């Protein structure tokens, strides 16, 4: 039963048989064996165990404290109740935090992508003088640890009235990410078809027109991946928001939840619910943009 790769396989297995014949299955290694199912099952168990923490969080966010105390953290909830989640939602001011995170992340994406586009246009398409030193500069900026900048930024933001405000913070993080975007886009632009640009400029298109009408549309695939990535990064930031966005009205989701931690240590179900609230938005985002996310990471790491 485990080997259907012969042409005499019953009709129900024809697809596999055809696929096998179509080519990649001449090697004996492609045959499914009991052993191969064992390996598959082992990997599946590993992945499930890997995801178990999420499952535990899910289970306990719906338990009443009494249920948790009698049945512990591993049982199914005696009955699924939403009250703990609702209560944590209110206490954290989750609606506001969600709004803050969305607003900030969108702003960061806009600033970072625009700046990166301009920078990379000058470096990759314009081939300006000293482009290599500029590129090295942006690359260096890209790896700077935040802790090496955070105190002066905190100080300067206080002086400039940007402290505990979304605007200054958004600009700061946008600039930080633009360094990475510049590096990535410059290498994409370096292999941009020159004829297109030359043809356009023959036709009298200026640099702005070329950027908006030719370069931007053609680099949209890379840009969209960058947008997805910057959105996630900015959503997940911790040190800068911890220092710069201190008031309740400005905090982002992860920060708002993690600073509640101290208040919850004696209240396990609330703790769990808080974690769940932090997990859900990104899981939703992940499910929507999964392909872009995995593609983007590849693009970023190995250009």
């Amino acid at each position: 039963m485990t080997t259907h790769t012969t042409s005499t396989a019953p009709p129900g297995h024809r697809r596999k048989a055809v696929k096998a014949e179509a080519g990649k299955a001449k090697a004996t290694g492609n045959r499914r064996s009991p052993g191969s199912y064992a390996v598959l099952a082992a990997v599946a168990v590993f992945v499930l165990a890997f995801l178990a923490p999420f499952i535990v969080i899910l289970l306990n966010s719906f338990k009443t404290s009494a249920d948790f105390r009698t049945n512990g953290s591993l049982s199914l909830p005696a009955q699924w109740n939403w009250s703990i989640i609702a209560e944590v939602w209110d206490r954290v001011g989750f609606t506001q935090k969600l709004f803050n995170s969305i607003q900030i992340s969108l702003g960061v994406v806009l600033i970072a992508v625009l700046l990166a586009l301009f920078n990379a246009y000058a470096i990759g398409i314009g081939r300006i003088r000293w482009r290599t030193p500029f590129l090295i500069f942006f690359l260096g900026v890209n790896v700077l640890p935040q802790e090496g900048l955070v105190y002066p930024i905190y100080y300067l933001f206080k002086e400039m009235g940007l402290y505990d405000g979304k605007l200054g913070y958004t600009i700061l993080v946008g600039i930080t990410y633009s360094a990475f975007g510049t590096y990535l886009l410059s290498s994409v632009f370096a292999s941009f078809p020159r004829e297109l640009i030359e043809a356009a400029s023959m036709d009298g298109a200026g640099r702005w027109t070329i950027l908006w009408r030719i370069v931007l549309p053609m680099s949209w695939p890379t840009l969209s991946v960058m947008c997805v990535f910057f959105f996630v990064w900015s959503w997940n930031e911790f040190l800068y928001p911890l220092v710069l966005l201190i008031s309740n009205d400005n905090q982002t989701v992860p920060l708002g939840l993690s600073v509640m931690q101290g208040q919850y240590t004696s209240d396990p179900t609330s703790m769990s619910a808080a974690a769940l609230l932090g997990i859900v938005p990104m899981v939703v985002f992940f499910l929507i943009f999964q392909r872009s996310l995995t593609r983007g990471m590849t693009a970023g790491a190995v250009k």
Partner: protein
Amino acid sequence: MKTTRHPRPTGYAVFLAPGLLLSLLFLVVPLVMTFYYSLTQWQGVGEPTWIGFDNYTRLFSDADFWASFRNIAFVIVGIAVVPTLLGLFLAALLFDYIGKKHGDGFVSLFRSGLYLPQVIPVAVTGLMWGWILAPEGAVNSVLEKIGLNSLAQNWLGDPDFALWMVLAVLVWMQLGYPLVLFLSGLQRIDPELYEAASLDGATWWQRFTRITVPILRPEVYVVLVTTTIAGLKVFAQIFVLTGGGPGNSTLVPAYFAYQNFFERADVGYGSAISSTITLLVLIIAGTMLTRQAREDG
């Protein structure tokens, strides 16, 4: 590289101006300021007092600082070495075994599952694990259920365990990153290569060591360097999980710097710590770049 048949196009520099200026203002100026603060004694208010390299000499005789660096060595194992090794093995298993025998559907399903922790906010991951590892958390529940009560611990509150727990959480968080990179790197491999090898009687392990690993060398390099840099910067996990404790058993430089900045009002000393990390990061990144440039050209 330099073709100067056509006159160099001019007028593009204006596009670089905003990005360059803002980066200088928001990133380079603070960097220079941090270095300047590191040469002063300053509480964050009033005038900094110039003390030269005193903060750095103090640093080198500070047990907490050395503890934080020892912990960073562990963190790098947890964030760079273990995920890379495990990721290599898993990527090869998914690509060269599961994918071939059971289809790419399983591969992408498993890949997504293992990548998921990468998109969860680090602070939330910390919150989640902090709860699971708590004295009344899930780990101890499991131990109780299977009758191993005696093994139950205060996992994050015991200096003998805290760092190992942090390490385990880091491995869990990081695994998806090398895995996804390696899987995409493996697309470069001509499937015939594996087939030829298995026809010649190569075992899975031989294919792994002779084909997979050599081909993935660039990705391995990138993963090791980027995660080592990330390891030097580790902050949120520590902040949320342990606060550097108990004692200084999970203290890391970034958290140590943060403490000096915002809890002890010792900005000069904190700046010396963060300047040291910055320097280390730049050296590692620079080494990577020059090596990569040499290999490319």
